[in-house]
């Protein structure tokens, strides 16, 4: 691989690795998601720095021009990351739905219990505002 190109690839993937580490250090990126990024960045650094490894990869996948193999590897990691995040977003959306459903039911139950209590105390303020909330829905 051309020396000039190798410097650019090394700077790019090294910068990505440092950025991910810094985001984790500042707790802006959860370790759960950072692991995939760290793995991808580390692999790209290794492939840029070590021309022999890149040559091996290029030969293995039948690419004549090694920098193209680097490009293919980067593309593979991008796809893997995107899929990983789509799965994560789907899980969040599902959990979000459950939260919304529980919230709707809890709010209705709370309103129901409060109206029941107001009726019992004859619209007066309860003398014992810390009375335990009855657990049974009448």
């Amino acid at each position, binding site marked *: 691989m051309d020396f000039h190109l190798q410097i650019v690839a090394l700077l790019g993937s090294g910068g990505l690795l440092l950025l991910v580490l810094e985001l984790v250090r500042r707790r802006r990126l959860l370790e759960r998601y950072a692991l995939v990024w760290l793995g991808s960045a580390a692999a790209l650094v290794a492939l840029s720095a070590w021309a022999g490894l890149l040559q091996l990869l290029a030969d293995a996948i039948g690419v004549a021009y090694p920098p193209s193999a680097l490009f293919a590897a980067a593309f593979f990691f991008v796809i893997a990351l995107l899929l990983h995040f789509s799965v994560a977003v789907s899980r969040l959306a599902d959990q979000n*739905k459950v939260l919304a459903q529980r919230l*709707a*039911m809890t*709010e209705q139950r709370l309103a129901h219990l409060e109206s029941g209590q107001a009726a019992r105390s004859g619209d007066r303020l309860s003398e014992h505002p810390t009375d335990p909330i009855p657990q049974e829905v009448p």
Partner: protein
Amino acid sequence: MTISPPRLEQPPPAPSGVRAQARTLVIVPAYNEAETVGNVVASLHAVRPQVDVVVLDDGSTDATSTEAERAGATVLRLPFNLGIGGAVQTGFQYARANDYDFMIQVDADGQHDPDMIDRLFQALEEREADVVVGSRFLSDDFEYPAPISRRTGIHIFAFLLSRIVGQRVSDPTSGFRLYNRRAIALFARDYPHDYPEVEAVLMLHFHRLTMREIPVRMYERGGGVSSIRSGKSAYYMIKVLLAIFVGLLRRRPVPEPGEAAPVSARHTI
């Protein structure tokens, strides 16, 4: 308060006997249906005063909740729009949490005739079904006013589903349904997301619940806009077809792990 679940495995002694002591919940999923939801609730109460009516306000931006409450319904307000699947599933969860024996689903736009509820119950008891669906296409007496594109789409789903489940399904998109406890337990736990009615038919089949259809009359929408707009018909078709084929391959969770499951899952395909 404890109510013994009705024994649907054996033919009930008298149709009114089961219903006399059973508790029934009617759910009305509503998204921006302020114009019609009040009338729907009022007509349900007029026809069957003993049932509890819950309106599921799916994040409406109009007065749907206020109108429903004014008409005497209990309102569950979802904090944002979940889509019809998420809203209806909230109804199943409410029915299960409050120990209802039966749940009826009715659209908020006034398409469904509350007078037909008796027929749903009749079919449930006489034909030993877990779910009874009101179908627009089973009787020539009831003309269904809908554009030809939508009817064609429904018939395509009906054709596919009938082949898959091995029983005639004439109106898989109908949202006029009666569920018993087993169906409530299943759908409270797992209900399809986006266009749920069609895939729910598949789920019933794979979980070995019995679905029956009866002919009903449906009216034109009283107001508002259908969630299936004509311009989106093709998009809707593709999404539902995808849901059917993905649905064939999905894993089937057992509704109540750790105890004798009320509904057992059979392996798909």
